[in-house]
C-alpha cells in the first residue's frame, strides 16, 4: 500500500461496552444506545474535545429499521457539533475493522485528521418482520379511505399471515446457516472435536485471566444496567472461568446432532455490544498530546465462493496483507484471530500452514504456523462474545493495547465474515 510520506493513521484509544450474551443484561437496550454509550465514553476517556472529530464511521450488520444510519446518531451526540458527517457500513463480521480501515483511508488521503470508528450489534434488538401477506394488508389498510374499507382489508388476514419472519443468520446465496458452514468445514478439513474444545477452553481461560488482571476491563466503559441504573456491568458475561474440557466435551453438537462436532461451547455466542476506536493522523495525535498505541500498516479484504468453505476468507486475506505490508509471518509479534467457530479458527490455521495452499496462491511457502503464545493472548470471540458489528473494533483495541504492553512491532488481525469474506489488518508500533 502506497502511503504518502507524513500521513499515518494512528490508533489513539479504543473503548467498548461490556459484551453481553443476547437476552441478558443488555436485552432492553437498543443498539443505537450502546453505540452512543461507547462513543461518548471513549471521547471522555480520551479527554478529547468533540469539536476535534471530523468524521464518524460505524459498522452494523443487522440495523434497526428505525435507525438505518446508526453512525449519524452517534455523531449527533450532544458532545459533538451537529455538523460531523457520518456513515454506517456493513462488511459483515468485519464491519468495524472496515470502519477503522476507512478511517485510515480518509486520514491517509488527507480528508480527515480525527475519525471516530466503531461498530455495534444488538442481537436482542433484531427486527422481526411481518410476512409479505401481512405487510400488504397493513399497507392497504393504511391507504383505506373509510372505516368500512379498513375493516374489509383486515378481514383478509389469514392465520399464516400472522407468522412473523425473523432474519436468520444464513447465507442468501446458499441457504446454509453459519453454523452449518462451520460444521461442513470441520468435516471437510477433518478438524477433531477435541481440538475445537481446546480452542474454546483456551479462549475462556485467557479472557478470564485478562478480566481478572484488568487488561480487558480497562477497555470497557461500564454500563449502568437495571431500572434504577444502579446495577453497573463492568465485564463481559459470556466468559466462563470455570469451564473445562470435560464440561465442553459433554455438550451436544447443534448443527448435526448425529455426526457433528460444532457445539454451543466451541462457537461464539449471540452477543450485544458496541466498540469504538479513535483514529487520528499521526501529527494531529501528537499535536493534541496523545501517545498513539499503534498505526495501521496495511489491510486487505478477500472473498471466497460461499458455496465452498464460507469462513475461509482469511486464507486469501492474510497472505495478501502480509504482501502489502512487505512482511512475513515471522515478523508478527502478536496475532488476533476472530473466533466465530473453533472449527473455522482451526481451518484458517490449517490452510495458512499448508504447502498446497501456498502453491495454489503462488506463494514461495506456507503463510505460517500459528504460535499460540502470541495468538489470541487475552481470549477471543468464543469467550468474550461476538456482537457482529463491534468485533473488529474490539480486536483492534485489544491488539493495539497488547502491542503497547509487550512493545511488539507488528501485529496481525484476521477476521472471517459472512458471504465468504475475510479481512486482515496489520498494526505497527511507532
Amino acid at each position, binding site marked *: 500500500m502506497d502511503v504518502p510520506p507524513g500521513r499515518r493513521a494512528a490508533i489513539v484509544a479504543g473503548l467498548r461496552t461490556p459484551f453481553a450474551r443476547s437476552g441478558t443484561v443488555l436485552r432492553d437496550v437498543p443498539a443505537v444506545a450502546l453505540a452512543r454509550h461507547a462513543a461518548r465514553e471513549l471521547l*471522555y476517556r480520551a*479527554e478529547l*474535545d468533540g469539536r476535534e472529530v471530523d468524521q464518524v464511521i460505524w459498522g452494523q450488520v443487522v440495523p434497526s429499521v428505525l435507525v438505518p444510519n446508526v453512525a449519524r446518531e452517534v455523531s449527533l*451526540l*450532544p458532545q459533538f457539533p451537529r455538523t460531523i458527517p457520518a456513515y454506517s457500513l456493513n462488511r459483515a463480521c468485519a464491519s468495524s475493522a472496515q470502519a477503522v480501515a476507512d478511517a485510515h483511508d480518509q486520514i491517509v488521503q488527507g480528508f480527515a485528521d480525527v475519525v471516530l470508528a466503531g461498530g455495534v450489534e444488538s442481537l436482542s434488538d433484531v427486527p422481526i418482520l411481518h410476512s409479505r401477506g401481512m405487510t400488504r394488508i397493513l399497507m392497504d389498510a393504511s391507504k383505506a379511505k373509510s372505516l368500512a374499507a379498513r375493516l374489509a382489508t383486515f378481514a383478509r388476514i389469514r392465520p399464516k399471515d400472522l407468522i412473523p419472519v425473523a432474519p436468520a443468520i444464513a447465507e442468501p446465496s446458499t441457504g446454509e446457516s453459519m453454523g452449518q458452514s462451520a460444521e461442513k468445514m470441520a468435516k471437510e478439513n477433518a478438524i477433531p472435536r477435541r481440538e475445537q474444545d481446546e480452542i474454546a477452553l483456551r479462549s475462556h481461560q485467557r479472557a478470564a485471566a485478562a478480566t481478572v488482571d484488568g487488561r480487558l476491563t480497562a477497555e470497557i*466503559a461500564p454500563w449502568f444496567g437495571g431500572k434504577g*441504573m*444502579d446495577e453497573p456491568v463492568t465485564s463481559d458475561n459470556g466468559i466462563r472461568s470455570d469451564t473445562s474440557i470435560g464440561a465442553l466435551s459433554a455438550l451436544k453438537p447443534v448443527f448435526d446432532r448425529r455426526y457433528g462436532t460444532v457445539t454451543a461451547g466451541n462457537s461464539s455466542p449471540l452477543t450485544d455490544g458496541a466498540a469504538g476506536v479513535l483514529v487520528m493522523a499521526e501529527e494531529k495525535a501528537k499535536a493534541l498530546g496523545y501517545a498513539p498505541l499503534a498505526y495501521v500498516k496495511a489491510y486487505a479484504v478477500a472473498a471466497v465462493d460461499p458455496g465452498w468453505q464460507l469462513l475461509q476468507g482469511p486464507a486469501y486475506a492474510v497472505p495478501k496483507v502480509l504482501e502489502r505490508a512487505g512482511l512475513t509471518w515471522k515478523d508478527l509479534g502478536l496475532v488476533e484471530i476472530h473466533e466465530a467457530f473453533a472449527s473455522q479458527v482451526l481451518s484458517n490455521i490449517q490452510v495458512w500452514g499448508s504447502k498446497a495452499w501456498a502453491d495454489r496462491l503462488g506463494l514461495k511457502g506456507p503463510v505460517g504456523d500459528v504460535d499460540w503464545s502470541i495468538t489470541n493472548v487475552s481470549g477471543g470471540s468464543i469467550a468474550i462474545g461476538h456482537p457482529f458489528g463491534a468485533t473488529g473494533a474490539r480486536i483492534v483495541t485489544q491488539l493495539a493495547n497488547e502491542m503497547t504492553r509487550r512493545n511488539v512491532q507488528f501485529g496481525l488481525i484476521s477476521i472471517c465474515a459472512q458471504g465468504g469474506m475475510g479481512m486482515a489488518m496489520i498494526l505497527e508500533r511507532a
Partner: protein
Amino acid sequence: MPVFRIERDGDVALLVLDVPGAPVNTLNRDARAEFSTLLPQLAADGSVKAVVLISGKPENFIAGADIEEFTGLKTADEAAALSRMGQELIQRIEDFPKPVVAAIHGACLGGGCELAMACTWRVATDHPKTVIGLPETMLGILPGAGGTVRMPRLIGLRAALDIILAGKSERAAKAFKLGLIDELVHPAILRQTAVAAARRLATSGPPTRDPRPAGLLAWALDRTKPGRALVARMARKAVLKKTLGNYPAQPRAIDVILTGLNQGPAAGYRAEHVAFGDLAVTDVSRKLVALFFADTALKKDDPANGAQAILVRRLGVLGAGFMGASIAGTAVTQAEVEARMKDADLKAVGHGIKAATGIVDGRLARRRITRSEADRLRALISGSEQYVGFRNCELVIEAVYEDLEVKRKVLKEVEEATGPHTIFATNTSTIPISLIGAQATRPTQVIGMHFFSPVDKMPLLEVIPTDRTSAETIATAVSFGRRMGKKVVVVKDHPGFWVNRILTPYLNEAGRLLAEGTPVDQLDRVLLKTGFPVGPAALLDEVGLVVAQKAGKVMHEAFGARLEPAPLLGTLLADQRQGRKNGRGFYHYHDGHKIGVDDSVYDLLGVHPKPRDPKEIEQRCLYAMLNEAAMAFAEGVVRSPRDGDMASIFGIGFPPFRGGPLRMIDDVGAANVVKTLEELTAKFGPRFTPAPSLVQMAKDGSRYYPA
C-alpha cells in the same frame, strides 16, 4: 423616532410596531399616542382594505404595558383612568371598520394579548418563543385593557380563569388549542399568512372559526349562569386556599370576569377599570412591582465588575447523591451543558445519572420539551467512578458529604485531574469557603456556589467568593448560575451566608415554640398566613432534621448564645425522626406526602399541645429573622438591601408582598421594630436584643431604601 411604521402589501397595510432603542415592544405612552392617530388615517384611506398588526422585533410581539408607568400612579382614580384609556384604545381596534389581523411571533403578553384579542383574526408562529398570556395578577393587579372581558368570551370561563388567576403564559400550540389563536404557522410564512388572512377577511366578511371541541358539561360550566357561578365558587375556594387572603388581585379578578359575563361587556369594562385602579395602588401590588424591577436589575447586575465569564460547556459534578444529581440535571435542562458526574462507586454514579435524567423526564412529562429534545438532554448526562472526562471541564461543582476534610480532599483531587483553567465550586451550606480552599494550589479559582434543595425548583443561588477568588471566577459562577435559571446573589464568606443565617433564628424560635407546647399545625398555619410558602415545622421535616441539627450547631458555634438551637431536634432524632426523608417527623408521611400532624410528637416532647396567641407566634419567629437580617446586613454579608431581600424571598420564601426583611423593616419603621424586639427581649430573653444597626436607624431615622 416613530414607534410604528406602515408597510404596504397591495391593499393590505402592515402596521409594524418597533419601539426604538428597546429590546422588546411595550405599549408605552408614545405607542398609544401614535396608534390613536394612525387608526383614523387607516380607516379613512380607501386603498387600504385590511390591516395587519405585526412586530418589527426579531423575537417579540408585545411584552405588555410599560410597567415603569405604574410606579408613577398615585391614586386609585389615576390608575383607573389609565386603565380606561387602555380599554378605549383597544375598543377602537375592535370597532375598526376593516379587518385587523394580529401576526404574532414572540411574547404576546398583558396589553399585547389584550390588543391581539380585540383583533378580527390572530395568526401566531409555532415557535417556542411565542407565548401568549395575561401575567398581570403576578404584579398584584388584573388585566386592565379589556382582557377580563374578552378572554372568557374567546376561550370560555374556565380556561380564562386558569390563565388570569395564575398569570400564566401559554405556548402557541396550547393557545391554538384553546382558541386564543386562529392560525398556527411556521415563522417564515407568518407575514404572508397574516396578509392573506387580512385580504380574505376583507372580501368574505367576518371569520368563521373552527369550533373547538367541547361537550355538554363544558357548555354548562362556561355558558350558563348557574354553571359559571359554580366555577367561580370553586375558583374562589382554590384561590383562598393558595393565597390565604394575602393577595387581593385574584379574588377581585374572579368578580370582574363574572360581572363581564353576566352583565355584559360595558359593565365588565367598568368593573375592570375600577378594580384595576383599586389594585394598582395596593401595598401588595407596589411590592410585587418593586420585586419585578429588583429581579430585572439583579439579572443585569455585574458583581464581577466587568470581568469576563468563561463559557462553561462541560460541567463536572462531584458526588452523585440527591444534591449532585439535581445540580447536574438542572444544569443540563437549563444550560444545556455536558454534565459529567463522579462518585466513589459505580452504583452511586448510576443512581445519580438516573436521578439527574429524572429532571429531564419531568420536563418531558410536562411537555416543556419534545421527545427528541429530551433524548439530546439525557445524552448530556454521564459519569464514572473516576475523574474521567474532567480534564476539559470549565467548572466543577462538588456536592460531597458536608465535612471539611472530605471537601479539601476532593478539591485536591480536582486540581490534579483538571486543566489549569478549571474552576472549583463548592456547594456547602455551613463550611467557610476560605477554609475549604486554604490549601488550594489555584486559590483564585475556588468559589462557593450554594444551591437550595430541590435544585430544579428553588430559584436562588448564593455565590460566595473568598478574599482570593478572582473576578473572572466570580463572573463565571454568576453567569453559569444565571444560565441554570437561578437568581444569583453574591454573598460574603461568613457562616450561614445570607439565607441560612437569617433562617436559623427563625427556625430556632419555631423549635422553642414547639418545645413549649405550641401545636404543630397552629405554628405552621400562622406562618403560612404571614405569607411563607411552608410552615417552619413542615420546613424542618423537608430539610431533614439531621441537616437542620448540624447547621444549627455550626451557627451556634459561630454566633454564640443568640443562635442557640432549641433542644428538641436531638429528642426527635433520638426517636428515629429524620423528617420526610424517613417518613417520620413532626408530620406523618405516606409515600413521601405529608398527611397530617404526628400527634405522638407531643408525648415525646413531654407537652400538652395548647394553642397560643397567633401574634406571639408570628412576632417571635418573624422578628428573630428581621433582627438577624439587620445584623448580617451591617456585617456586609450582602452587597445591597436589594440582594438581601431578593435572597430572602427566593431562598426562604419570605412573603413577596412584604418585599423582603429589610424592606419590611423600612415599612414597619426601625423604631417600631426596635420597640417590638425590646418587648420580646423582656418577655423571652436577650436573644431578641435589637441589632445595634437597628437601634442606630431608629435614632437617626435612616432606612435601607430611599423613602
